[in-house]
Structures are given as C-alpha cells and as structure tokens.
C-alpha cells in the first residue's frame, strides 16, 4: 500500500471569463501521507475552501490532477465520483450538516446505508460511543447541541474508514471550549485509527501541534505557516 494518499498536481481553478476572470487557485501542488494531520490555513477568500471542494470532488479543477489513493479522480464519471466520495472520503463541515429528519445514529449510518450495508447500525453505534454520544444516539439531530452535532459529524466522517477525512472549518461555529474539545477529539481519532485528516481553518493557533501546515495565499499554496519568505510548493 502506497504511503501517499493524496496528490494535488498543478491544480488551477478559474471562475468567470475575460475581464471577470478570477483565479481562485493557481498551480497548487502538494501531497499528503497516510496518517498525517494536515492543516490548510489562510485568510478568508484565499482559496482554501475551494481547494477543499476540489479534493472532496464536490467541484472540478479547471486544470491539474487530484490523485487519491492512486486514483486520478479527474477522469471519473459522476456515479464513480459519488461512490468514490462515499468510500474514500469523509466530510466534516462547519455547520455539522446532519440531516434534521434523521436521528443521530441514522445520520452516522447514512454513508454505509448508501452502500446498503447491513451492519451499519452496529458500526455507527461503536463510533458514537467512541465520540461520547452514546446517550444521544436516538435523539433527532436537531435536538442536540452544536458541539454534540459536530461530534456526530466526526463519527459520520469516519464511519466508512475513509482514506482521508476533509474538515472545513470544523470549529468555526463553536465556542472556544467546545472547539478545543472537538479538535482534541479529531486528533485522538487520527492517532487511534491512523486516519489522515485534512483540516481547513482560518485559525491556525486553535489547533496547536499538528503534523503539517499548508498555507494558501492568493490562490497559491505554501508549505508551512504564512511567512513572506516561504517558497511556493512545486512537485
């Protein structure tokens, strides 16, 4: 099994045409190793969420390649992309984005239910116990607190044992104490499961020690934290 789980190669994303053309990402390249806890930081509008959408296959790059677990995702069909997202990627969003119509347990089961897996409830319950939500499993997802919802979202992101978990400002909607708990939970799960995490945040300091940091500035990616002398990453 290759040690590299994600390769972003010369990814450019352009919106609009002619005078209104905006380069959201310019020739972004980097790779991520299995088990890494990677932060993607940058100021608002720098292009970090756009990058996450590309890696999460929610949007397509204008040029370049995104290779996940050895598969070049840019050539996948719509159905293949859906299956790929389901099996290889886990998502944690800023607003947890649980389905209000389902219970906490059913939300965590959902990625496996999409695959019609029969033991989905069992695996989801195990993960919910691991994130400390055992007593909230059967509550409707809109009846729990923001911190609990984000814990459930982490469980949902992990339930399919994805190659990489993508988190978009996972603490952006939480108070500082809850945010700290969520960060510690993600870090502990990453360690315990040897799970790769790619976390987009605008608040670098909240996360403390992490394996790696990539900074996005004006659509370009730099290794390490934002410093004027940093060199642009090229592969």
């Amino acid at each position, binding site marked *: 099994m290759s040690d590299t789980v994600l390769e972003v190669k010369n990814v450019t994303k352009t919106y609009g045409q002619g005078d209104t053309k905006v380069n959201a990402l310019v020739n972004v390249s980097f790779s991520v190793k299995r088990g890494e806890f990677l932060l993607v930081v940058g100021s608002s509008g720098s292009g970090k969420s756009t990058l996450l*959408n590309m890696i*999460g296959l*929610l*949007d397509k790059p204008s040029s370049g390649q995104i290779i996940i677990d050895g598969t070049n995702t840019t050539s996948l069909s*719509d*159905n293949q992309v*859906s*299956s790929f*997202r*389901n*099996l290889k990627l886990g*998502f944690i*969003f800023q*607003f947890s*984005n*649980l*389905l*209000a*119509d*389902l219970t906490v347990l*059913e939300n965590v*089961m*959902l*990625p496996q*239910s*999409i*695959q*019609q897996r029969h033991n989905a409830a069992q695996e989801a319950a195990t993960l919910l116990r691991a994130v400390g939500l055992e007593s909230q499993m059967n509550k409707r997802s809109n009846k729990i607190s923001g911190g609990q919802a984000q814990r459930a979202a982490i469980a*949902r992101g992990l339930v399919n044992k994805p190659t990489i978990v993508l988190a978009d400002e996972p603490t952006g909607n939480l108070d500082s104490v809850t945010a700290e708990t969520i960060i510690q939970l993600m870090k502990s799960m990453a360690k315990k499961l040897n799970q790769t995490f790619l976390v987009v945040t605008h608040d670098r300091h909240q996360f403390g020690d992490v394996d790696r940091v990539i900074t996005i500035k004006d659509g370009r990616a730099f290794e390490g934290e934002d410093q004027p002398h940093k060199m642009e990453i090229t592969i």
Partner: protein
Amino acid sequence: MDYRVHLAKRMLTNKKGSLIGAVLAVSIGILVIHVNFVIFQGLYDAIVRDLSSYRFGDVRITDKESFITKSDIFLVNWFERIPSVEAAAARVESSASINVTKHGKLIEEFRVPIVGVDPFRDPRVSTVHETVTDGQYVFSRNSLVVGSSVARDLGDIRIGESLELKVIDRHGQDQIRRFLVTGIVSSPGGQGLDTSVIVHIDTLRDMLSREGETGQVLVRLNDPKQADNVKEYFLQTFPNDDFRAETIEESAEDALRGFRSGIAMINMIGYFGMMSSAFAVVTIQMMLVSSKTREVGIMRAIGARRKDILVLFIIQGMIIGAIGASVGTAMGLSYTFYAKETKMTFQGSLPLQVSYDWPKIAQTALTAFALAVAASIYPAFKATKLQPVEAMRYV
C-alpha cells in the same frame, strides 16, 4: 428497510403541512370522480331501473310489423318455464282522445297514450302499481288509472269521477267508452306512466278490435345479466314469427344515448380534476425539493448518487399517492355508502341507483397513485440536478 424509503417517510412526516396538502389534492381528485359516478351513473342506472320496471321489463318482445298474434298465455307460460325468468306479462298500447267537459260543454280534447295491462300478471313484471298515489290500480274492465300529468291536465280529476275515452280501432272506426277513475299514478322522476292512462288489457283489445292480440310481452328476470341469453334463446325458438326481442338497453336506447354521452363527458371532467390534483402535487413536491436543497447537497457530498436522489423523491410521490389514493377511496366509498343507504334523491326526483363498481374504484385509485408518482418525476429530476457544492451553500 431501504434508507431512501425511511428518509422519504421522515422528510414527509416532518413537513406535515405539505404532506396533508398533497394528500388532500390526490384524495379530493378521487372524491370528485366518486361523487360524479354516484350521481351521474346512479342517475343513469336509476333511469334504466325505472324504464325497466315501468315500461320495458328486462326483455321486451314485440312484433316487427304490428301486434303479436300468438297467444299471450302461450308466450307467458313459455317464458315462465325458463329458470332465469321471474315472470312475464302482456300489454297493449295505443293512444286515446279524452274530452274535457265542464257543465256538459266541451272545453278541450287531447290525446294521451293508453296502456292496457293484465291486472293480475302486470304487478309481477312491473312496479307501476306501486306508483299509485291515490285510489288503486286497474282491477276491473271499466276501471281507469290516470297518470298524474293527465289528471292535472284534466283539471285535477278525482277518484270516482268518470271519463270518456275514444280510440280508433283496427278498421278505422271510433270506439268510445266511459270509465270510472279508480287510481292516479305518479312516479318519482316521472319515468312511470304519469303521462298515460291505464286500462284493463282486454278492454283495450275490445276497443281496438284486436281480441287475443298483444302489443308487447314484458319479461322480468331473476338475474338481469341473463337478458341477452334469454333474448337469444327466444329468437332461436321462434325464428319464423317476426318477433323482435330487445334488452332494456336496446329498448331504451333513444332515451339513454344522450345520457351516456353526458356521463362520458362528466367522467372526462372528473379526470381533468384529477390532473389538476397532479399539478398540485408537482407544486408541493417542488416546494419540498426546494426546502430540502441543503439535505440533497449533504447526501450527494457523502456519496449518494443522482439515482438515489431521484428514487428518494419518487418514493415521496409514491407515499403521497398511496396515502392520497387510500384516503380518497375511503372518502369516496363513504359517500357512496351514504348515498346508497339513504337512497339519495335530489328535489324529489327518482332515487339514485347507487352501486359499488369495484373495477372502476380500483382503476380510479391506481390512476391517482400513478399520477402522483408521475407528478413527482419532474421535481425529483430537478433535485438530481443540484450540484453538491451549490446545494451546500444553503445553510
């Protein structure tokens, strides 16, 4: 249970207003068709029932050219030997002139249909005797039962008064006879002999100089569905007698043809109503899809395929269709039950002949279900077109 079924159920139950609106749209569409059916098919069947009961029987035998010359006793006995025949009776029909006089002075002369009945056999094939509202049915050779319309035209003639009738016999001679008014008939809906006068069959035969002849033989069946078989059997048995045998539908064709077209049009209007319900379902489903944009985005993000989203919203349509069809059918059956039990009439008209047409009830429910599902296809298709990254912005 498939997660899409589970999620579709939850999404609908959490949007009770939309669910109730969509279910009502479907059920009211069905109810309209049931009400139309009860009223218009009920009216049609009531007219058939009354025409059969009062005038034509289930099978009517006439002569192609003129009067039946074969003995009516022979024919009646022949029919009554058939197991599916309940009874048979002969009638003679013609027209008569009535002079209206006051203080011995002729005021008016008008013509009315005159029916000669066998007072003993006729009540077994016809219910005209049940429409006597005053006095009694024909019981002797000089008794006369007057239709309510005729009685009115005669200045509200009363029981016990006498009346002179003039008919033209087979030789073209006027035959005048005085009768005693013994009864007045009036039928609900006016399909009976309200515009005729009724006399003893032998009296009319005498007046027409047609002793032993018969105008028509009415046959009442135990099972009206056997009418065609009885008719065919009769025609095969008497191939050389110039008989005409007609079922009630054939006898009353002229009266019913226009009505049948009317029913077909009313049914069309009912189905157009159901189409309107389908448009309501489209609108409500579009609203449901709009309100679930974020959820669709989340599902797509975590790996649901376009097909899963399509199936999810079509299942919603199936749930709406199933509940709507069940509720609508239950409402329709309740209305039908009420109409049947109360022998529903409108403004003293004839009571509707209400029946449960199960194939039509099933067809209506299935059509409504299919329309609700079809109405969900476009909104479901629209939902599949949502791009996850766009849908996720609706937080």
